[in-house]
């Protein structure tokens, strides 16, 4: 496939993509970011592209490290992480990208891993169809500077127990025998086993990606191993008008209200006088 492409500057991709989309809303715009890119230097643009719901698709490759500059910690690096710039371990608390998405009132958030092309394709297709800014977080391994950073999730022996692929309308079940599940207990999520302690499938949470309230979406996105599985799939997908749609409504509205329709009319309108 041949595409148009623009490799912009570090962190500013969402802003450039915003301009592209608004200038021509018919384009399908995809924007690729790193964790340092989206969440450190470009954090501001990232949250505003979500808040404005600019119908662009952001792919955030999260390898929990600055790869291109050869291995400094990033805003998603775990606390205590030893990197080139944190020889004694990082003392900063990491972000979950999802927290920013929810905080910025993002309308689409999905998570996948780099080694699962099938899931990735599924998610990308949904992201493309979603009207509004879609944010897909891709948990990515960095072989050179942060190998196996997502190993707890991606390693073959961990896959079944630490990955939960959720789908809208389906119960959140996982494990080799698909008998483990997520249950809402008061204001907390917990892992339960169907068939143990009187738990039946009815007790298991059914995923509602379409609910506007982001509370549960956020709780799910924050779950991490080893206590919980990592939630993968489309966690949030809610309907809201995209920026360009409202922009076009404004154009239509201003056409009916406008006093001047050409530059000559505008320049010659208003208070003028004739010098004879």
């Amino acid at each position, binding site marked *: 496939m041949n595409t*148009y492409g623009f490799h912009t500057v570090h962190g500013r991709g969402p802003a450039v993509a915003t301009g592209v989309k608004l200038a021509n809303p018919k384009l399908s715009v995809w924007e690729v970011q790193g964790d340092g890119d989206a969440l450190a230097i470009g954090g501001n643009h990232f949250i505003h592209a979500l808040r404005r719901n600019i119908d662009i698709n952001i792919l955030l490759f999260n390898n929990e490290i600055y790869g291109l500059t050869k291995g400094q910690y990033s805003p998603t690096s775990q606390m205590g992480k030893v990197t080139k710039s944190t020889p004694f371990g990082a003392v900063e608390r990491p972000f979950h990208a999802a927290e920013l998405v929810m905080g910025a009132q993002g309308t689409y958030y999905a998570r996948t891993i780099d080694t699962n092309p099938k899931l990735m394709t599924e998610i990308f297709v949904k992201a493309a169809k979603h009207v509004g800014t879609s944010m897909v977080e891709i948990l990515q391994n960095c072989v050179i500077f942060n190998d196996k950073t997502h190993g707890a999730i991606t390693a073959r022996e961990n896959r079944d127990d630490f990955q939960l692929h959720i789908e809208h309308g389906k119960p959140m079940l996982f494990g080799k025998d698909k008998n483990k599940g997520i249950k809402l207990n008061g204001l907390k999520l917990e892992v339960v086993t169907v068939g143990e302690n009187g738990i039946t499938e009815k007790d298991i949470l059914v995923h509602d990606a379409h609910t506007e309230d982001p509370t549960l979406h956020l709780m799910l996105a924050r779950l991490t191993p080893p206590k919980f599985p990592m939630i993968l799939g489309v966690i949030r997908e809610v309907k809201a008008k995209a920026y360009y749609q409202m922009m076009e409504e404004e154009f239509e509205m201003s056409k009916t209200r406008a006093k001047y329709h050409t530059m000559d009319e505008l320049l010659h309108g208003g208070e003028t006088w004739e010098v004879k």
Partner: protein
Amino acid sequence: MSDAISTVKKKAEEVEKVVVRFAGDSGDGMQLTGSQFSFTSAMFGNDLATFPDFPAEIRAPLGTVEGVSGFQVQIGKIDIYTPGDQADVLVAMNPAALKSNLGHAKKGGNIIVDLDAFDKRNIEKAGFSANPLEDHTLDDYNVVQAPISSLTKTALESIELDNKSIMRSKNMFALGMMYWLFDRPLTDTVRYLEAKFKKTPALIEANKKALYAGFHYAETVEALPSFYKVPPASIEKGKYRHVSGNVATAWGLMAASEKSGKRLFYGSYPITPASDILHELSKHKNFGVITLQAEDEIAAICSAIGASYAGQIGCTASSGPGLALKGEALGLAIMSELPLVIVDVQRGGPSTGLPTKTEQADLNIAIYGRNSEAPAIVIAASTPSNCFEFAYMAVKLSIEHMTPVILLTDGYLANGSEPWKIPNMSSMPDIVIPNPPNLNGSGFLPYVRDKEKLSRYWAIPGTIGLEHRIGGLEKQEETGNVSYDPLNHENMVRVRAEKVERVANYIPELEIIGEGVGKLLVVGWGGTYGGLFTSVKELQQSGRKVDLAHFNYINPLPKNTKDVFSKYEKVLVCELNMGQLASHLRSKFPGVKIESYTKIQGQPFTVTELKEQFLEQLKNNYEHNGRDQEEIYKTGLYQRSIGSVVSGLRRLLHPVGNAKCITPNGCCQRGCGVCIRNRLCCTIPVLHEYLWLPYRTWKRPGCSYRS
């Protein structure tokens, strides 16, 4: 109510031009009063220029000097290019306004004060130790102590309005007085009031009453024995309107959009004094204008770059602090060779500096302020109304040459206004879109260039067959693929620079106001035009030999710049910074003697100070000029074997090529550059001094002199 007609017969004093300054508390409505006075005068037929001078504080404490807002206007029967240096009439609505504006009042002029505001508290707040109306502070002025507040109150007794609204009408009382003083009709302002307060008839009534009351009061005031007559100016025929620099900028961008058939995308983050451009553009969505109030200046420029990539006109504006933030992305636009217009409405700096005051100190950042070799086209508007023309040209150059253009305006132009002869769109030059040439089956290469301009073509995403990728990494020539090849890099850096240099083939030459040759050439750029023009014209009218060359195109410079400079003994660059253009010109033209006159006070030049400076410069003018000593020595004396030493020396000291005679009386027709008769007497002592010069024969390589 019938229109106010003066019944008391008083003397009329006819003047060519007059400066009026309104000053009051931020809440006193002085900006409105001033603009109404200006508008009425424009309708009357005067030429004029305005200068709003307001505080940075949104609501400084009432009655303090910090909270004083001023509005100055000069009206005339002659052409007016500046708001004037000092006010012939100052209206001061309280002691603080008097305190901070006394320096702007002309000695011997009229000062009208609101007597009611001069109570003990206000006088103290303003920082006067005693009542300035009672001591000798105002001895040099004709003071009119008008009880404006109480008379307004009396006039509005019958109207059912709260006290606050009544007191807010006192500016109309003051305006009424001014209308009497200048023999102006009240009808334009009445019409304005009726439209403005359409929904609250009581306010129309109150403001009208105050206006008439002020008018009638003024004619009874003994301290105003005469009124001014400023007859209409002989202005070029046509339809006029008022326009401020910021509105003109916005309209210029829109006009270019309409002409080019491209939508205007304007990404901006609010900042004084640029925000009004955003406000104006966001009103005109029906013209297809897209405005995005971005999250910061970086996003503003980046979104504009995105829009340009997508095939629309990407534009952004800010002031100094914002331009500093935009630097990295500007480099991206230069590298990706996309059209982009960046407007910088300059203000006093550095840092937050003087947000509401004017300055020209962003020239360096505009020309040089990016990492690596990143040339941009830099142009500057020079009057409020020609912001229209230069905003339009910014878009045109940017599209036609596929490279960013920085348009410099400033707070003085942005907020200042003047009557403007309205242009017709049909008179605006065409904007040619650099569409990719026919491919004839071969693939599209994004960095193939136009042979003349060296600009690449604009392939619009979404077009089948033109798919391509660009970005901030160095490009291989033609293909645009990422390339780290050393020679390719050198080539690309030079091509990008050459592309911008070649813009000089497409811009007008530098114009000279004056004779084109002589002792002193005054040089300016941007918003100082009005002051420089007025000063130079006035000196020329009194017989002084001084010319003006004013730059609107700064990078690249007009092609004839060096030629123009070389015809003068001295070039004096005047600017509101520490000499940024002067340094730039010195680096471009090392042989030319360039001096610098500067002011860095957040205020425009006054005509008085400029004229003084030019006269001073004309005085100490005989030096051997042209070249400095070191250079003279390096060059040495070149002489044709049959030529005389004197003419050779003359050429050396004063390398003006085949210029016309430059002596003031033009006594030689030989076109040799320097008049023999006049110059010889100066040459003899110089000859003596330079007798040690190395003597060489003619035929210096590259030498173009002929004697």
